[in-house]
């Protein structure tokens, strides 16, 4: 089948899509956007988190056909050509990136949180990131990154 969708502001078409394919597969293998990662294929790890019509989802759990006519935003679409989004920048600055395989998904999850609630408490940050596994960092520096990004976003709004 053919799937038409908007990704990071551009229209894309994928042909010969098998009905069993996930949005993640279409992004990674058909449209050349490998930023979202495949680490569990069961919606447990969050490494494939993308925005679907503005809501973070695990792209591995979205059938490709469900994305027809919808808008997807991936980690590749957060920053500008030479500019990092404040969330991306905070992850680099705080040491929240080690192997980085979880990072694209966590960046999206954190981006969603700090824009919904730039004054989130630690408990709220933990709750918002509970669907994203990281095996390297022990999460402490990821919390630092989200706090830093939240303060940047809050500052921009003030």
């Amino acid at each position: 089948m053919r799937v038409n969708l908007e990704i990071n502001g551009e229209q894309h078409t994928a042909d010969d899509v098998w009905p069993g394919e996930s949005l993640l597969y279409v992004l990674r293998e058909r449209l050349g956007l490998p930023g979202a990662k495949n680490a569990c294929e069961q919606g447990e790890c969050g490494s494939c988190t993308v925005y679907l019509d503005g809501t973070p989802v695990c792209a591995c759990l979205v059938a490709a056909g469900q994305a027809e006519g919808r808008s997807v935003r991936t980690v590749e679409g957060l920053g500008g050509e030479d500019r990092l989004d404040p969330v991306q920048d905070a992850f680099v600055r705080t040491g929240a990136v080690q192997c980085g395989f979880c990072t694209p998904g966590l960046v999206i999850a954190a981006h969603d949180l700090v824009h919904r609630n730039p004054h989130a408490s630690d408990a709220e940050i933990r709750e918002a990131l509970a669907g994203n596994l990281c095996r390297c960092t022990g999460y402490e520096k990821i919390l630092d990154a989200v706090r830093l990004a939240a303060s940047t976003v809050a500052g921009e709004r003030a």
Partner: protein
Amino acid sequence: MSRTDTRTESLTSTGTGGVGESPLRPDGTLKVRGEFAYSSDLWHEDMLWGATLRSPHPYARIRSIDVGPALTVPGVHVVLTHEDVPGENRYGLEHADQPVLAVDVVRYQGEPVAIVAADDPETARRAAARVRVDYEVLEPVTDAEAALADGAPVLHPDHPGGNLVRQVRIRFGDPAPTAPVVVSGEYTVGMQDQAFLGPESGMAVPAEDGGIDLYVATQWLHADQRQVCLALGLAPDKVRLHLAGVGGAFGAREDLSMQVHASLLALRTGKPVKIVYGREESFFGHVHRHPAVLRYEHGATRDGELVYVQAEIILDGGAYASTTAAVTGNAATLGAGPYRVPNVHIDCTGVYTNNPPCGAMRGFGAVQACFAYESQMDKLAEALGISPVEVRVRNALEQGSVMPTGQVVDSAAPVAELLERVRDRPLPPERGGPLDLRELPGGVSNTTHGEGVVRGVGYGVGVKNVGFSEGFDDYSTARVRLEVTAGEPVASVHTAAAEVGQGLVTLQAQIARTELGVARVVILPADTSVGSAGSTSASRQSYVTGGAVRAACEAVREAVLARVPGAAGLAGAAVVSASGEVLADLVEVLGEDVVERTVEWRHRPTEALDPATGRAFAHVQYAFAAHRAVVDVDTELGLVRVVELACAQDVGRAMNPDAVVGQIQGGSVQGLGLAVMEEIQVVDGVVRNASFTDYLIPTVLDTPPMPVEVLEYADPHAPYGLRGVGEPPTLSSTPAIVAAIRAATGRALTRAPVRPEHIVDG
């Protein structure tokens, strides 16, 4: 549209940030933008996808394999079996005992039997499922001690010693000591998975010279190359390995997974072949932490001084040896812990069974021993009526102490100070105030409002060796080049060392900046066109590859300084005198020249263990960490919430303080996982939970605040005085948490991980 391909990129580190500072990762921007090319992101025009058919049985004879039905699937290019392996159909890190593809027997569930190349991954998987294998199912050997009993099936008939992989004996001091206070116990450690997030993957690209370029996520390019060459029957210059982006390792990438399979398919089809494991396959695609049974007896004086330690340790190595022999050596030589013990008697045994193969995982034998000896120290404290910290401090190893191998600890061993530092931290506040479910065991599952919840505090301390031990020729190679590019002096560093997330690329740039006084450092992609760097394991790369990079920088520096009379060093892109006076601009001194040096660097040699007593200078360095765990336990439901996990660790020199803290926190959480969550459930040799739905690793909600204190007592034998960092925090975290649960519940808890029923039912 951009597509990631097989190019491996150089990383450039600019600005300031030498040894002891925390400059940003040179790969950080790529990683947060989703542009870093992991091994699973590789792409090539015309590439095929590989898939692997694995045995569903833990032990079976193969009567026949029929690939015919798979070949009829449209889109399939080739289906290969053991008959298609052109070289040796055997590989292994220490013993070549594992077939690339099974021949007439399979020894564990998940053993590769056939491989397929097809146009897309789904076709490849479906075709692999159509290969017909006629198995004669055999009764598996699934108990490590039963495997050693007379009459047990011999799993590797050509291996001398039956199912025994290795036994290490430690004999130290009086062979028959007695003591007035004796405590004993039997402890069990479950099979833990490394659970890196980036699954096994890579791409093999056939080359015009009949060889292969293999892009892969690994921990040790040259060990892979050696094994791939043997299996393919090709010379090393025909098998060129390139490090693709690595999504975590923790030991699980030390052994081969898809390397030979992808190469075979690529050579046969003449096309690039990519293999990417899914999560379920990943559980079968790498070795795990050895499950262990550990029987300990500690004897002490009435005032709490250790008189002896006796231990019997059984490690289940599973179907193939992998690194079982070295893990056995570690568990034995470190089996008495970071304590002064005058009399030690340890038998440590690694065994073949039909369980999943076990090998390297962060902590490597020291983790299992630490859980047992620390549980014993708590038992001893209770028997003596003194505090857990006090009994440890009274016996704490220190510089000059003698290990049970007879080796004198010849650098700092601040075991007592580490314990005192975590003990003396303020405790986290008691629960109180308004009800917040998120602060209770069970969380928003709303299983308690505080009734039945008891707080406990526990301690642990451990000792880990750094680097490869027991006489292994442990070295690394670095090529460093200094030249002027765009009017600026630029250093480039080329090694084969695997960056797996820990930050070695950052560290290499820091060392070059410190030694060569330049701002801009280029880290070239790791590959086999430069000599081996050894494995990214054993907490060794900062020490060994760090040492090699420093030595190569020194050689480059000497060559540059020889050009300027009175020169003593390089700083601020200038040649300076001993007093720091600028003698010449480095750009002018270099001119058009390229100064390049390649250095192979070794740490001081270690010795093989005496087979009768274990005596040896076995380890090049010891590293220590201590934890204090605070837990809340719902004693009615057996649910645990770790409230705080404080760590103190001596790192000799904090080469990159931010990265050091990141390693300590990450390692501590892997220990937390082993304490209360993580175990591969193996029933009759069959894995029951090969998914992230069923094998649980800690989420951010399972993970507490982790204050870290970093001590820096330089080791005079090591580059910059540094001490390996990655593994020690994984050792002591587990026993500290289990001790805290014991303190809260009064249960004996002799098994890690602790399950709810152990807490509720005892």
